[in-house]
């Protein structure tokens, strides 16, 4: 990739090409399945310890420490345990996991076997979004290869450990990126999030203790086992964030794409201007959505923030899945928030009242404003609705829908007012 900066250790991007996909490449060029062998010689506690040391935080969006999550599985439980990979990659703006599955599927498979071994699970599923048909086929092929060579199945590498892995395709529902929605979908149900507690670690897939991890999270595991948690942690530039991170950059930039950067190593400005070649057409930057479309929007003045979990949280947004969407001066922000809100209304599962009713209501109001039928009170009403959704819903989709609306109204209020005053019309 042309823009990928150098000068630091990367784990993925040098392998993001078609040849890397084969088992032969994986074994010869990426120390394939050596981490698994090493893991088999370690105790589960030792692996979790190493994971904790790595400061690996979930790459799906929530940023929860992976080692700690694995530790939640009740050891004494006699129920079948499950390890599920969240490959739904549904947060708009995110497309990094697709590259991992497309180019380095064995990394994910190896990571999953290690994860399964650690938590005592012999059954794994990769829940992949339905649209990724090609990636599902590639994963299937890699899994077949792994079975054939004894990296999956019974008595893996003579360890006595068994692990079965199945690719399960979603069918078009953003909400299945939410882990309990995903589990329902895996079980053949509507992908509606579940009431928590119980949390998946107690009762997840098919009622068994379950860990759900993102693709990148699991793909990081072999590196951590091979080179040590401390080494991984030091790849990151901030104390609490280890490793490198795959950033998905899209929108109005000259070089959109997936970039691998040290966690906490770059500001948004550096990513947009130095890594991605600046704003499309040399235009002025207007706004940045720093973590997938559910992240509150940042203005052009706010981009000197380090692109990592805590720094972005501090300024009222979130890093989420590290999906950065860049917006230049020509973009109408009212139209953009209408599109974002339409998405969340479309993807609301419909179970809980604030999300089902509120998301559509917000979309209708914004739509009305765009068509010249807005009133100034509508802006306060929108803010009220976001407050009434935020933190009141059954899952995080409500917050995901409310946060952007609140931030757009707050930060780009004059654009809304222009429509309401009739100075602009869609």
């Amino acid at each position, binding site marked *: 990739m042309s823009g990928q900066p150098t000068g630091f250790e990367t784990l993925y991007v040098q392998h993001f090409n078609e040849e890397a996909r084969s088992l032969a490449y994986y074994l010869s060029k990426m120390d394939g399945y050596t981490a698994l062998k090493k893991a088999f010689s370690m105790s589960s506690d030792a692996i979790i310890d190493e994971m904790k040391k790595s400061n690996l935080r979930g790459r799906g969006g929530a940023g929860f420490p992976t080692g700690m999550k694995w530790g939640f599985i009740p050891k004494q439980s006699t129920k079948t345990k499950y390890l599920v990979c969240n490959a739904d990659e549904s947060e*708009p703006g995110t497309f990094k996991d697709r590259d991992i599955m497309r180019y380095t599927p064995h990394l994910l498979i190896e990571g999953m076997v290690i994860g399964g071994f650690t938590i005592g699970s012999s059954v794994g599923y990769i829940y992949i979004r339905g649209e990724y048909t090609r990636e599902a086929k590639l994963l299937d092929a890699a899994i077949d290869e792994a079975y054939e060579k004894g990296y999956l199945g019974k008595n893996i590498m003579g360890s006595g450990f068994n692990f079965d892995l199945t690719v399960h395709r979603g069918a078009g529902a953003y909400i299945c990126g939410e882990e309990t929605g995903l589990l329902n979908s895996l079980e*053949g*149900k509507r992908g509606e999030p579940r009431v928590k507690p119980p949390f998946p670690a107690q009762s997840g897939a098919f009622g068994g203790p379950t860990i759900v991890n993102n693709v990148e999270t699991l793909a990081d595991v072999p590196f951590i086992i091979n080179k040590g948690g401390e080494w991984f942690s030091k790849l990151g530039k901030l104390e609490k964030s280890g490793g490198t991170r795959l950033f998905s950059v899209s*929108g109005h930039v000259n070089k*959109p794409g997936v970039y691998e950067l040290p966690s906490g190593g770059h500001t948004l400005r550096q990513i947009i201007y130095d890594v991605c070649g600046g704003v499309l057409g040399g235009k002025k930057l207007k706004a940045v959505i720093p973590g997938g479309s559910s992240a509150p929007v940042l203005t052009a003045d706010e981009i000197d923030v380090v692109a990592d979990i805590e720094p972005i949280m501090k300024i009222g947004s979130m890093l989420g899945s590290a999906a950065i969407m860049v917006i230049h001066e020509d973009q109408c922000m009212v139209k953009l928030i209408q*599109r974002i809100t339409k998405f969340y209304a479309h993807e609301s599962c419909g179970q809980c009242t604030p999300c089902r009713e509120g998301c559509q209501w917000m979309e209708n109001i914004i739509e009305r404003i765009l068509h010249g039928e807005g009133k100034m009170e509508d802006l306060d009403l929108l803010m009220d609705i976001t407050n009434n959704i935020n933190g009141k819903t059954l899952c995080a989709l409500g917050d995901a829908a409310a946060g952007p609306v609140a931030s757009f109204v707050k930060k780009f209020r004059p654009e809304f007012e222009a429509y309401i005053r009739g100075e602009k019309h869609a």
Partner: protein
Amino acid sequence: MAKLLSEKFYGSMKKLEPRYPTKVALLLPALHAAQDELGWLSPETMEEIGEYIGIHPAQVKEVASFYTMYNLKPVGKYHLKICTNVACCLRGAYDVVEHCEKKLGIAVGQTTPDKKFTLHEEECLGACGTAPAMMLNNDYVENLDIRKMDEILEKLN
């Protein structure tokens, strides 16, 4: 009633069955496989799937209708699903959609009278770095623009 789904369908389900602790978990894979075979999911197809899995046809429909990839109505031979979510919309997806509407003479959600093309707006396909993107049946087409769209439509027509 004569079976609508092929031996191949039932064979693939049988192979998949040991992969899950419950039979209901086969529902999504079964719906995918049935749609691949028949193009869409008719009430009769869903009834047959329900019978195979051992669930009420209402349960099949409640699941099938939750997910946007399942076609509960027949679609054209070529199903164009153009992403208009943030990244694609920033990169001109709506121009491509409008162009398609004009060129095919149908609105989003419709099928051409010759049953060749169905046009849909799609939510994020996870191909934002190569926006605008669309799905043409089961495959991705990326870095779309009007010129590229024209080429595609020409080839298919």
